[in-house]
């Protein structure tokens, strides 16, 4: 901070800069909408994140740090909303997707069916550079059963540990593990089908 005598003024200017806001707002909204599956709540969360960021804008001198900060606040807001929802539908918590089965993937001995054996995935780095890949990833996330995508988001997007998820959701560790496992299996299958495995079918 010593090399920048007036970080506050700079940060405020940046935040108030509408070009800068319009630059990051769509990303934030997209992120929030995906997590919350509710555009109104997403709008609110983004709005609150901006307000929260404004209060602390003093400490930021550069765009990248500010963006990280605004997103960090947004993630908190989203986690809050998700926690609140989770409490509300506790009665749904012991639902089907905990047991669900993998009959389509594994045979009775627990080995891969021939047609479902995971194959090699091409270069993920190059996929990341393609907008179409992210569209597919979005779609795959949206296809997960609701609870799976929420728990997955808490773990992978918000960065909560499984213990924290247990506390927030009052699910057992085993349940959280099972749900995360199912979510990952579902996502990998979806990405495989629609992106990575598309080029070739395994014999």
């Amino acid at each position, binding site marked *: 901070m010593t090399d920048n005598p007036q970080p506050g003024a700079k940060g405020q200017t940046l935040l108030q800069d*509408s*070009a800068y*806001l*319009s*630059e*990051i*707002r*769509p*990303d*934030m909204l*997209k*992120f929030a909408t995906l997590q919350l599956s509710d555009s109104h709540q997403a709008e609110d969360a983004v*709005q609150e994140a901006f307000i929260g960021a404004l209060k602390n804008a003093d400490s930021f001198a550069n765009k990248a740090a500010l*963006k990280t900060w605004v*997103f960090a606040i947004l*993630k908190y807001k989203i986690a809050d909303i998700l926690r609140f929802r989770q409490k509300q539908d506790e009665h749904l918590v012991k639902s089907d997707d905990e047991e669900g089965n*993998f009959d389509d*993937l*594994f045979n009775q*001995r*627990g*080995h*891969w069916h021939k047609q479902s*054996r*995971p*194959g*090699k*995935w091409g270069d*993920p780095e190059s996929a*990341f*550079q*393609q*907008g179409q890949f*992210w569209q597919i*990833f979005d779609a795959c996330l949206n296809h997960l059963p609701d609870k799976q995508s929420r728990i997955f988001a808490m*773990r*992978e*997007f918000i960065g909560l*540990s*499984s213990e924290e998820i247990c506390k927030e959701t009052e699910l057992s560790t085993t349940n959280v*593990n099972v749900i*995360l*496992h199912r979510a*990952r*299996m579902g*996502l*990998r299958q979806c*990405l*495989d089908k629609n992106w*990575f495995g598309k080029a070739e079918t395994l014999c």
Partner: protein
Amino acid sequence: MLNCEETSRLVSEGLDRDLSLAERLSLKFHLSMCAACRNLKRQMNILRQVTSFYTQADLELPKNPKKGDLDADEDVR
């Protein structure tokens, strides 16, 4: 000995907690013999890369393509 389904579960849990020595050994043993599960493990790792890339919000590539186009953005409040 682990089957593939159990292996997939351990691979997933390995992303959430430290596996015990026994778990790691049986996982390693199974993976050494099973190409499909090795691929699965790699895919799970890629999935984590995908999500972490995703949360960094660097989605719209190329970045800041046409700033001017955003001027009309409906409601930047």
